[in-house]
């Protein structure tokens, strides 16, 4: 049974109880920082070692889709923060609205990510047997979603990168492994976050969050913002290598 807002024996005040919950969440988030930090570190070392292949891989990502998703995720962090505020001042209808908006923006992010992933499958950019960084350059008819002009730029990039790195395909595959690994883990965190948001929404319809007790909204908010921060770093690391041509 949910003892909403009950003061547990080990705490003196509700305030202290809430600070403790938030401290615990932060300690968990620190472990998450180390988790993603380690992955980004491994990525950085590979990117430094195989710079040409990683730059080539990065340039095959859609900056429009990635940039759009960055805006969507930042906006979802804003609606989440507004949700926390709504709970703190007891505006129960606003809380429901902001939680719903946050979920909606989360799903917009998933939708765009689906489009991006699907594109990579069509362009033979998924690590494995059929991976071919030159696929679109060599089969323009199969990649009609890329403009002819853009493809011409890509052809020159591939030629230049081949000169610099004879093993381009293998190293570009490494880039795409990192891309799917990192964005996949990020998306997994978002799926968990969306699940938590649905749970908050359900509870907010039961009206259990009040200005005196809204700890879960606050804690899930911390998690959602953390996932946003991960994307804040993933976006420049993955999408913005060597864009200037």
């Amino acid at each position, binding site marked *: 049974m949910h003892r909403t807002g009950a003061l547990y024996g080990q705490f*003196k*005040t509700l*305030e*202290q109880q*809430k*600070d403790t919950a*938030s*401290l615990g969440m*932060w*300690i968990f*988030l*620190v472990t998450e*920082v*180390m988790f993603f*930090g*380690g992955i980004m*570190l491994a990525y*950085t*070392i590979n990117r*430094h*070692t*195989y*710079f*040409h292949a990683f730059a080539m891989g990065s340039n095959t990502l859609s*900056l429009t889709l990635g*940039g759009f998703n*960055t*805006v969507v995720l*930042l*906006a979802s*962090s*804003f609606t*989440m*923060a*507004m949700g926390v*505020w709504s709970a*703190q*001042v007891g505006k129960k209808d606003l809380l429901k609205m902001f939680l719903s908006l946050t979920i909606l923006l989360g799903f917009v992010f998933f939708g765009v990510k689906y489009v991006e992933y699907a594109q990579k499958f069509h362009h033979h950019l998924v690590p494995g047997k059929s991976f071919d960084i030159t696929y679109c350059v060599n089969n323009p008819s199969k990649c009609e979603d890329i403009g002819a002009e853009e493809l011409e730029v890509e052809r020159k990039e591939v030629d230049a990168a081949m000169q*610099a*790195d004879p093993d381009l395909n293998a190293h570009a595959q490494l880039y795409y492994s990192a891309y799917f690994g990192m964005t996949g883990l990020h998306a997994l965190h978002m799926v968990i976050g969306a699940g938590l948001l649905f749970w908050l929404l359900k509870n907010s319809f039961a009206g259990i969050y009040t200005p005196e007790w809204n700890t879960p909204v606050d804690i899930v*908010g*911390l998690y959602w*913002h*953390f996932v*946003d*921060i991960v994307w*804040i*770093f993933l*976006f*420049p*690391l993955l999408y*913005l*290598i*060597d*864009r*200037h041509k």
Partner: protein
Amino acid sequence: MADQEHHEHIVQPGTYLAIILTLLVLTGLTVGAAYVNLGRLNIVVALAIAVLKATLVVLFFMHAKFSPKRTQLVIIAGIFWLAILLFMTLSDYASRIDYRGVRFPMTQNVRIAGPSRG
């Protein structure tokens, strides 16, 4: 204890709005900067903007600015721990000669003179 006198600070919507607008401007800035050839500085600028954005999210969206000192200490300790991970590993890679006598990064393929190792 001073901590017991800590009262919940409610961050107002106006602050959130100012922060999200700043974050969006910084996102535009980081995309714009990627198209300017700054050589080695491109990644530095991109990461500096990312750090700034993350700091704004932590301080305001995550209320770290108004959290008890104990919580702030945990956050700072976490970032410091990450810095140790990054610094020690990168300095190792930057100065390492691997078992084949090849200096990092391997694409440069510089063989270091001397007997082969390993």
